[in-house]
């Protein structure tokens, strides 16, 4: 199983029936593919839709029904549409149960940096800062390391997305939570040892006596 599939499958386990969920771009988008069909999850698209459905069949796309990247999507029975003030009212107002976002760095206290690399990549934060400020649970879905460098760092060197810590980080190697504000190893990916996780993690990680393997 490749890294992205491991992450997406594990994050999907966090979603519960009735949840209103907002998925960011990249790996988070894949999470929708692994939600069991009997689970009634509402996906929000920040451009003004609850009840996003799959990409429409060839020839069925409509220019007024798109995701936040401007790509054609469909709407499921029971979907609703609204303007951007309502969409971000839902996000900032604590009505979104779970948001899943990509990350560049997460630090030992759960702070996320995911919106710019000064001097290199300045695309703008879009909806990310509001999502991290307002969603009930914030899950970061990202590779554990990039180009051999840990993305779980002692302190973020990149500009923070929010002063509010995230709830959970799911990588291709581990699940990390922040009980009492301290990065803690909760699970390891199949075939990955605690030692291997520690070896590629810059942040100090608390390790409980027993660390179960991810069930995916």
């Amino acid at each position, binding site marked *: 199983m490749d890294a992205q599939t491991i992450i997406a499958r594990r994050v999907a386990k966090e979603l519960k029936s009735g949840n209103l969920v907002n998925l960011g771009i990249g790996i988070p988008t894949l999470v929708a593919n692994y939600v069991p069909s009997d689970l009634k999850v509402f996906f929000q698209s920040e451009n*003004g839709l609850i009840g996003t459905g799959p990409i429409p069949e060839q020839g069925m796309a409509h220019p*007024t029904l*798109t995701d936040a990247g401007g790509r054609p999507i469909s709407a499921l029975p029971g979907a609703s549409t609204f303007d951007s003030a309502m969409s971000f009212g839902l996000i900032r107002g604590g009505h979104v149960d779970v948001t899943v976002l990509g990350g560049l760095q997460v630090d030992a206290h759960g702070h996320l940096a995911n919106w710019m690399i000064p001097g290199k990549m*300045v695309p*703008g934060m879009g*909806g*990310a800062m509001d999502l991290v400020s*307002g969603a009930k649970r914030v899950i970061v879905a990202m590779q554990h390391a990039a180009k051999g460098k840990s993305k779980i760092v002692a302190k973020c060197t990149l500009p*923070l997305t929010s002063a509010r810590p995230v709830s959970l980080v799911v990588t291709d190697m581990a699940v990390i939570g922040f009980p009492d504000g301290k990065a803690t190893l909760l699970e390891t990916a199949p075939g990955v040892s605690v030692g291997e996780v520690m070896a590629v993690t810059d942040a100090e990680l608390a390790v409980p006596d027993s660390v179960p393997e991810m069930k995916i």
Partner: protein
Amino acid sequence: MKAVSVEEAVAMIPAGASVMVGGFMAVGTPERLLDEIVRQQKNGLTLISNDAATPGKGVGKLFDAALVSRLIATHIGLNPKAQQQMLANQIAVDLIPQGTFVERIRAGGCGLGGVLTPTGVGTLVAEGKRQIEVDGKPFLLETALRAQFALVHAFLADYLGNLAYALTSRNFNPVMAMAADTVIVTADNIVPVGVIAPDHVVTPAPLVDFLITNG
């Protein structure tokens, strides 16, 4: 509301004007107005728009023609031309969180001085802004945002100027239709009064100054 041609409408916009444009990645954007702004070469614009779309689409056309001098937006990562113009200091860019962007415009349209939001506290966004505590929680004071012109796209407009929108092309349009001195609208369909039921009108007619007639 007055019905006008697209040429007449854009002739009213002076070079250097501040212009809000509805749409999200060019979905729900008044393309005919943007094409005409390019044809009439209205330059030096302050553009207030969620994103920079992509080259050749929506507000992306304004960057293709180098007509923007200042941009207030939330994300421009999908338009390399807008990024190049920003990095070359040809345009001044304010990037702000999307929820803050829409609330500042809503405040501008609703007679509020601004809003208090938790978004951006403790980040680069907070620099130079007043932080205010309410019930022990920190918020940033984000001031209201208005423009001289709002360019809005609707799915339906009736002969009086009542507007209804379609699916995700609604986005910023109804909020911007409240927040500008002059509101100019294009619509996919112009319909008789009564076709849009009162409960389905999203933007009431008195907010619309000009409706672009079918070409």
